[in-house]
């Protein structure tokens, strides 16, 4: 039967060829206007000028192993500097026979982090508990030794990546709770506590970390009686924690402000005390809201650990810097800094990607 109307839908006509597929995409995203085309071409030309020679230098012409600088191809990168000193960059001056302990520390860290970060694995609370309570203790014990026949390794023998990670780990673990307390204090209804917390936060946020480290390294020993001696590494840690907890407090405060008053009031009407309502109701919500901010503070902390160089501790950057002074390896600055930069970047970029993923969920 025929009808005046088409019974079937006429399929939509395909878009014109030049707005489809690769070509269409390029037209829209690269060559939309003459000006856009100019920008695209300029950037492409710039990349062409930079990338192939860099690839040639960094990979094709590079030397990967060798005893000293003269073993390296002059045209290419001298990664031999990094490979020859890799152990030192990772373990510092840690005794060679004991490096398995550092590896154990890395493994613990990787295990707990992996557990926390991979959504498929259950038992996040357990992992969090392990990370917050067990990990710091076991790590410190394993690294410094002195029990079960493990020889003591003094902190001045620690160095390289492990010091960076130790500083970052303990800095993070300590600055988060202190930051939470300060944030609660700054929003407290008690004027003295509020003033005190505000002053503390503003004081540390107002000065550069380098002066804080200087203070921790040079002046802290003057502040306490002679009998109390702090380890240099611990002093640096105290400085970093004092500094970063102030930043952490501001992040957490942002989260607390976003939680409606009604939540706390509801708790009160249920007869919960201040700490109960905060710990069980308000803080969990607030912290969840500001996880990206917390991770950003962690990233800043991780990068800031490199500043311990100025007080003479050997973190990753500092030990690379020291390696560059070796007469055998003069002129390897670019390779050294690229390597250290890449390692730092890997950690920080990883953390920022993780926080972005959390933000999306």
């Amino acid at each position, binding site marked *: 039967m025929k009808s005046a109307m088409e019974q079937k839908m006429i399929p939509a006509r395909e878009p014109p060829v030049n707005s489809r597929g690769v070509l269409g995409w390029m037209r829209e995203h690269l060559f939309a206007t003459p000006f856009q085309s100019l920008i695209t071409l300029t950037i492409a030309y710039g990349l062409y000028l930079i990338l192939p020679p860099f690839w040639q230098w960094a990979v094709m012409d590079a030397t990967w192993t060798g005893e000293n600088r003269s073993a390296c191809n002059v045209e290419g990168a001298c990664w031999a500097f990094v490979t020859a000193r890799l152990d030192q960059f990772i373990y510092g001056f840690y005794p060679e026979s004991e490096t398995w302990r550092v590896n154990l520390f890395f493994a613990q860290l990787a295990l707990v982090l992996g557990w926390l970060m991979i959504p498929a694995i259950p038992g996040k609370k357990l992992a969090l508990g392990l990370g917050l309570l067990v990990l710091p203790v076991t790590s410190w014990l394993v690294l410094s030794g002195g029990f079960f026949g493990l020889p003591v390794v003094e902190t001045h023998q620690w160095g390289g990546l492990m010091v960076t990670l130790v500083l970052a780990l303990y800095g993070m673990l300590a600055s988060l709770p202190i930051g939470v307390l300060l944030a609660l204090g700054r929003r407290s209804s008690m*004027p003295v*506590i509020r003033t005190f917390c505000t002053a503390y936060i503003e004081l540390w946020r107002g000065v550069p970390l*380098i002066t804080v480290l200087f203070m921790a390294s040079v002046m802290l020993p*003057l502040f306490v009686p002679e009998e109390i001696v702090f380890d240099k590494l611990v002093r640096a840690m105290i400085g970093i924690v004092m500094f970063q907890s102030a930043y952490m407090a501001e992040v957490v405060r942002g989260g607390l402000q976003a939680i409606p008053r009604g939540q706390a009031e509801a708790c009160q009407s249920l007869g919960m005390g201040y700490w109960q309502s905060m710990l069980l109701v308000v803080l969990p919500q607030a912290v969840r809201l500001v996880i990206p901010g917390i991770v950003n503070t962690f990233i800043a902390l991780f990068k800031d650990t*490199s500043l311990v160089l100025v007080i003479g501790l050997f973190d990753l950057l500092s030990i690379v810097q020291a390696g560059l002074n070796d007469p055998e390896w003069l002129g390897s600055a670019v390779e050294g800094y690229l390597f250290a930069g890449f390692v730092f970047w890997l950690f920080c970029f990883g953390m920022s990607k993780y926080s972005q993923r959390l933000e999306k969920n």
Partner: protein
Amino acid sequence: MDNKRQPMLVRLWRDPVWRAIFFQVLLILAVVAMVGWVVNNTLSNLEQRGISTGFDFLSQSAGFGIIQTLVEYDESHSFGRTFLVGLLNTLLVSFLGVIFATVLGFLMGVARLSSNWMLSKLASVYIEIFRNIPLLLQIFFWYFAVLGILPSPRQSFSLFDAIFLNVRGISLPWPILDSGMVMVAWTLLACCVAVLVLIFFNKQHRKNTGRPVPYIKAIMVSIVVLIPMMTGFLADARLQWEIPALRGFNFSGGLVVLPELAALWFALTIYTAAFIAEVVRSGIESVNKGQKEAAAALGLKPRRVLSLVVIPQAMRVIIPPLTNQYLNLIKNSSLATAIGYPDLVSVFAGTTLNQTGQAVEVIAMTMAVYLTISLTVSVLMNLYNRWVSLVER
């Protein structure tokens, strides 16, 4: 439950008001005890070890040289003067850093949102690389790996035989001001003020009539250009340039940008700009899409949409975090000490501390400076914020 039956203390403890007072008194006592303990320890430690105290050292003569001084300074000046020299150098590099980081940051932030795929990818690669690498490492990279391999002064790269680039820095020509030129400069300043007044007047005029003052642009340009030129002609001003030249070991004359300053400036700019770019991006994204569409529907070109509609609104979101970035930049400039740029931390908390040995006083003064800067800027920004949000209504 009958409260009266319980002992007095328990009742007080159960009363929130009293409990709050109790906690606060406790905190005050704890803080006072802590501070007292620290001060007591410090004083007894200092006395026991025979370390001199007090601020007398500020008037003693310093006896060491500083490579870059914005005020008159030589070895015979006092330690107090080194404080000023260091402070000014800190302010100089912070100022340069803030200006350039703002420009680069805004460009990158806008580029990040560009519809051009290549441009936005480039911007995001830039952002992700530079904000995830420690600043100190970047400073080292620029100083040792890039500027450190430039040629010696005798083999300098030169441009028109007037600009020289070598491992000791960049030497640039610098104008010598004769009395005529000084007059021109003052006239120029006066003209700029006049133009500002005109702009204000024009705004009022446009508010009242809906039209700008006729030929306003031409009038403004001629004020700024013609009047100073006439002054220069009348006062017989001659502009002379001091061209840097190789004398003895080094280039002398002209303006020298030290490699330490350059490395610190680059690193601060590039690092901070990556953060500013993110601030700008989130600021722009916070502007309602409808605003853009409405502006486009009115026939505004994309660039005008950005500059007239989007950015002014985004600024309200951008300003507070932007301020934070500026403060971070100022504080980060203290990393100068790692490459020997003579900033406050390097000169005062470094050399002066070491020559006098008075750590407590020197560190306290240094921290006080940064704290003052930070608090002042925060106060100013809060005022600005209040001003902006009033405009909103």
